[in-house]
């Protein structure tokens, strides 16, 4: 259970995800550069982790029993920052300092800049090794917490993650849950055209992971996958989360061009309108 920020209802969690999406877009627009698509696509999973599943305490970032949330593909950090701000790690208005001089919200996360960040990331493939090190440390110290590692699908073009996957299975790190943002886009296009990954589930199974595949934008499915993942013993878990890049904004969805792009003023207005509409629908259903 989440120590501080527990939101239990699915609709309320969806509302929080909607809030994160709005803040991500506002922050990116203000920053003038950054990565929109992946951040939007992962808003549901970050909401589930920071507001329901993960055992964390924003008021005590060095609490040794906290779950570790490690972002490996650092470029989607606007969603991490938005989740952390709303969870209480820092003031929400600070999101507008994203990528700005003198700020704490660097373009790619820096562990020393912002309390609550577990790691620095940016160069792809390193976070998963750091997470494996944390999971191994927990085993060596007989600690009970879970290490969550969030990764992009394009990221695993790199060799290093496969070293880390091999290692994690060899050491039976069942306290490690890897979540792959399977959004099928990377900078140069569709992942299956740039550097094919399918069949991804079979690759992870062959690497001795317990594999769970879900719709990563379906909040109920995300919650149940994360709950199931924690029950697995003897193996690390990989959740392949099929997400829609740019989720929630019609003109960004599934467009690889939005990987490393931010909305201009007109696009922001239109995007926020769409998200407000979704919000009204959610509030109506609650």
């Amino acid at each position, binding site marked *: 259970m989440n120590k501080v920020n527990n939101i239990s209802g699915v609709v309320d969690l969806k509302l929080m995800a909607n809030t994160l999406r709005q803040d991500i877009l506002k922050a990116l627009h203000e920053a003038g550069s950054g990565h929109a698509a992946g951040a939007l696509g992962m808003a549901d999973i970050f909401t589930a982790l920071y507001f329901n599943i993960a055992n964390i305490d924003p008021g005590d970032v060095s609490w040794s029993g906290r779950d570790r949330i490690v972002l490996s593909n650092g470029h989607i950090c606007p969603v991490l920052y938005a989740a952390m701000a709303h969870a209480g790690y820092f003031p929400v208005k600070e999101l507008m300092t994203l990528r700005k001089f003198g700020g704490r919200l660097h373009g790619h996360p820096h562990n020393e800049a912002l309390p609550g960040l577990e790691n620095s990331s940016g160069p792809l493939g390193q976070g998963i*090794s750091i997470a494996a*090190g944390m999971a191994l440390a927990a085993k060596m110290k007989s600690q009970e917490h879970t290490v969550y590692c969030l990764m992009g699908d394009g990221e695993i073009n790199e060799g290093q993650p496969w070293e880390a996957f091999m290692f994690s299975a060899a050491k039976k790190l069942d306290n490690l849950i890897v979540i792959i943002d399977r959004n099928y886009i990377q900078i140069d296009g569709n992942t299956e055209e740039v550097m094919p990954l399918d069949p991804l589930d079979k690759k992870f199974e062959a690497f001795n992971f317990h594999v769970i595949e879900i719709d990563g934008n379906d909040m109920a499915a995300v919650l149940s996958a994360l709950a199931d993942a924690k029950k697995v013993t003897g193996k690390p878990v990989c959740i392949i989360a099929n997400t829609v890049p740019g989720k929630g904004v019609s003109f960004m969805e599934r467009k690889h061009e939005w990987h490393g792009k931010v909305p201009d003023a007109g696009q922001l207005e239109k995007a926020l309108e769409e998200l407000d509409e979704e919000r009204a629908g959610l509030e109506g259903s609650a």
Partner: protein
Amino acid sequence: MNVVDNLKDVQSLPTRDGLGRGLVKLGKENDKVLALCCDLAGSTRLDWFQKEYPDRFIEIGVQEQNMMSMASGLASEGFIPFVSSYAVFSPGRNWDQLRVSVCYSNANVKVIASHAGVTVGPDGATHQALEDIAIARVLPRMTVIVPADAIEAEKATIAMARMKGPAMIRLTREKVPVITTPDTPFEIGKAYTCREGKDVAIIANGPELYHALMAAEELGKEGISCKVVNVHTVKPIDRDAIIAAAKECGAVVTAEEHQKMAGFGSAVAEVLVEEYPVPMKFVGVDDTFSESGKPAELLEKYGLSSPHIVAAVKDVLKRKS
């Protein structure tokens, strides 16, 4: 002074032996010390630690990149991981991981860069690291130590664990004469004089310190007086000791088993150019790859043996006003 008087009659040991001994001592002193191994336990002497502390020895297989970042994760949980491999692979192959997972993240990770230099010998140029000092010292927060012999390597290993932050120790495969003693002082960042002299200061470290002392002895016979300084810590470098040596002698020769470019001599030059420029000469590998051969053959061909230091001293003397 600070080293044995008779250079001829000394035992020889690889500096990696000192690392192995130091790690075993550390294992006893501090239960947070871990040894991470990339399938080279015997070569790096990590097997000595493994034997005593099997639970704190982590075999990773041939995964230098994973090892470096993973060590950062272990360090953030309070451990003091020593990552080990040949210098060509670590920090050679995993430099980006050293840069971001370790240095940028300020992780308390210690890098054992073994089998450095041409003295790796028959394995050939792929396995002879001649660039590792350059790529390590350029990273903010890195400490870089090149011990002269096995005794100094042992002291350096222990000192690295006691300091906080990223650090690298550069070691040799080949036996090198043990010229320091248990009483020789060792402090990270603190150079010391091994021989007094007034005409030229030879500033060296690692196995080249022995060649520098041999050269100084040879030059002494010809009436040329050389001061020899052991700057075992390339970073943070002992600026005061370097400036003092330059002021005292008015000319400097550096010696390293590494590329001249961007290496140890360059680090010395960076200090002197700003603070006290004097005529200088670098002994090191001159922008080339080496080859297979016996260590002595390679030291001779690639300009690293004591006759090359003798020649460099004579050359720099001509430019001294």
